[in-house]
């Protein structure tokens, strides 16, 4: 008897709250959940700066003046897909969140993208690299901003050869991501007329001493050493290359390096490193203006491309909400995303751009070289521009993605 009574009481309590929640839904605000890594290895390229960028987008859009109430929630997915999917599901179902943004870490992003699709909400992924988000696993509710692995490989591999780095050797982390990164980049190098002299696989995870791999790379005489790895592997490679002077005889090309990594490494270690980003704070007037606005809330850190993507993505989302109305935007994530794709994008961080049918946000890709300490004039004055890939060439062609939304 105890058991049924408790069950009944619980359900009764829950149902009695329902009408209240419905009554409130009429003038409910747009809720944006920034789901990032607040405590782990991606904190510097996501974390609090992403939250600051989201708030900046709301302020720049002038949401309050336009009568669109916006609330921002913050979550830490701790780099665990089940926590990410759990938090996102709870936000969507219980807290009335309409948009989840940021989501670094590919496995978490794919899981959250799927939840967003099931619940018909919006997911704007700015932090993850996997090109599957706009490929086989694309959904009508997901937009992928900032970068993906195809774009990074294409820009760093292709544009680098054109800039003179035509013989390559790869240091590859021995797992799926590393091999994919190496394969893609090598193809672009060959396409552009360059030559791949070889590669070495490093055990993953857990390799901390890359010196012998670096010396092996140096002995081949390759002009460019491609680092097909990520995170601490890349950082260790770059540091040890500086210690052994390998960066004097060859150029290091990081395939997944962010400005936060360069900041952590210091210019002494990172100088001469070549990398690709779609956003750099000191690129032009607009990016500088955006950075000046957001800087008071980032603790001095300049945003990287993932964090700037949060700004651009949220801004475009709010523009779409304004167009179709708050009630319609809350009712259907797919309709909001369709509206976002229908309008051109334009924001201070990325300039004019567009969003493709598969959810890929298109922007130019910039190949940068890290300055030497002598060249750097101001704090965070880190990059000089080597080459620009225009937006229509920077990302994987639509037909090669095998996104189910695109008729073959």
């Amino acid at each position, binding site marked *: 008897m105890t058991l049924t009574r408790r069950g009944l009481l619980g359900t009764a309590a829950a149902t009695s709250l329902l009408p209240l929640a419905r009554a409130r839904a009429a003038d409910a605000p747009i809720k944006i959940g920034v789901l990032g890594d*607040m405590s782990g290895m991606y904190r510097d390229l996501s974390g609090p700066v992403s939250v600051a960028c989201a708030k900046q987008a709301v302020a720049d859009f002038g949401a309050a003046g336009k009568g669109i109430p916006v609330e921002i929630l913050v979550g830490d997915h701790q780099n665990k897909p089940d926590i990410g999917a759990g938090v996102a599901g709870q936000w969507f179902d219980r807290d009335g969140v309409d948009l989840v943004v940021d989501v670094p870490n590919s496995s978490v992003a794919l899981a959250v993208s799927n939840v967003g699709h099931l619940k018909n909400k919006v997911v704007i992924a700015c932090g993850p690299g996997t090109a599957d988000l706009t490929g086989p696993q694309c959904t009508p509710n997901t937009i992928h901003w900032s970068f993906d692995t195809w774009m990074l490989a294409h820009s760093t591999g292709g544009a680098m050869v054109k800039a003179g780095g035509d013989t390559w050797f790869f240091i590859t982390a021995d797992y799926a991501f590393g091999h994919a990164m190496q394969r893609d980049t090598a193809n672009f190098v060959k396409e552009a007329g360059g030559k791949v002299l070889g590669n070495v696989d490093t055990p993953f995870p857990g390799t901390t001493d890359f010196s012998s791999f670096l010396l092996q790379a140096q002995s081949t005489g390759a002009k460019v050493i491609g680092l097909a790895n990520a995170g601490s592997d890349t950082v260790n490679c770059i540091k040890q290359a500086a210690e052994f002077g390998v960066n004097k005889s060859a150029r290091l090309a990081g395939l997944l390096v962010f400005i936060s990594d360069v900041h952590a490494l210091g210019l002494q270690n990172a100088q001469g490193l070549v990398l690709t980003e779609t956003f750099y704070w000191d690129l032009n007037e607009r990016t500088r203006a955006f950075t000046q606005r957001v800087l008071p809330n980032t603790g001095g850190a300049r945003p990287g491309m993932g964090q700037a993507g949060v700004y651009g993505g949220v801004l475009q989302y709010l523009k779409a909400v304004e167009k179709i109305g708050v009630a319609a935007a809350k009712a259907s994530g797919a309709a909001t995303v369709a509206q976002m794709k229908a309008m051109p994008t334009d924001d201070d961080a990325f300039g004019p751009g567009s969003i493709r049918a598969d959810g890929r946000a298109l922007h130019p890709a910039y190949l940068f070289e890290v300055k030497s300490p002598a060249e750097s004039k101001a704090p965070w004055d880190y990059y000089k521009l080597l080459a620009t890939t225009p937006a229509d060439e920077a990302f994987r062609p639509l037909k090669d993605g095998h996104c189910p939304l695109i008729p073959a």
Partner: protein
Amino acid sequence: MRGQRNTQIIAFLILIALVIAAPGMLYPVFVMKVLCFALFASAFNLLIGYVGLLSFGHAAFFGLGAYATAWTAKNWGLTPEIAILLGGVSGAALGTVFGWLAIRRQGLYFAMITLALAQMVYFFCVEAPFTGGEDGIQQVPRGKLFGVFSLANDMSIYWLVAVIFLAGFFLLNRVVHSPFGQVLKAIRENEPRATSLGYRTDSYKLIAFILSTFIAGIAGGTKSLVFGIATLTDVHWSMSGEVVLMTLLGGLGTIFGPVMGALVVTTMENYLAPFGAWVTVTQGLIFIACVLAFRRGIIGEIGAKLKLAL
């Protein structure tokens, strides 16, 4: 003895009532996650709490169960009950091999062997093509129970998870209180003495190990269907650490302890998510407090206060 039994029954009834009432008050997906981890921790507790074997590689069985269920449900389109069962079977199959190797040593060596073997499984999952490497297996369909009842709705899969949890929980409880369980406890207390009484302790330990890994596989498989994903997180050594934390926090060698521990740890992970780095800091502080202040764990201390075996 009779009073003891009655309190146990009352405790079970309260547990069942809570499982039934919980989704009305809390987010069902969250409750399902707690139940999966509670089952996982209970399976782990069978070894550490009742045989005295500290397995530091239980994530291998949990994760392999998750991968097996996710893969078969997605690629073969198996119905959820069979996919989850396969998850349990693959956990047990791996457990048979690992257990056969590991039970030859005791204490720290046993823990190290299980950790080493689990790390091998982790690296296998990083490299193997079917696991999807870093991205994991995504978009796993929940399917239709017995090919009839759709589980797409959170509440319908909740009842399946609740039944699996309760069944696993009662199975473990039955095992612990059976004559077989008495022998396990005898081995925990004094293995040479159990041997001298004519028990083949190795066989008992191996059977307990396989049983524990089977349930761990079931828990992993169920979780992969709930979230629709199976990823490297499930096989990572930190998952093995987490289940140790849950069991210690709740109460080693108590029936309800692991459930309580799973609830506390999962709640922290979920509801502290807005506070960023504080999740891990809080987990650490609670662990320290637990080790220093209440070594028997939450349920263990309550049981000691009330003079009950919970």
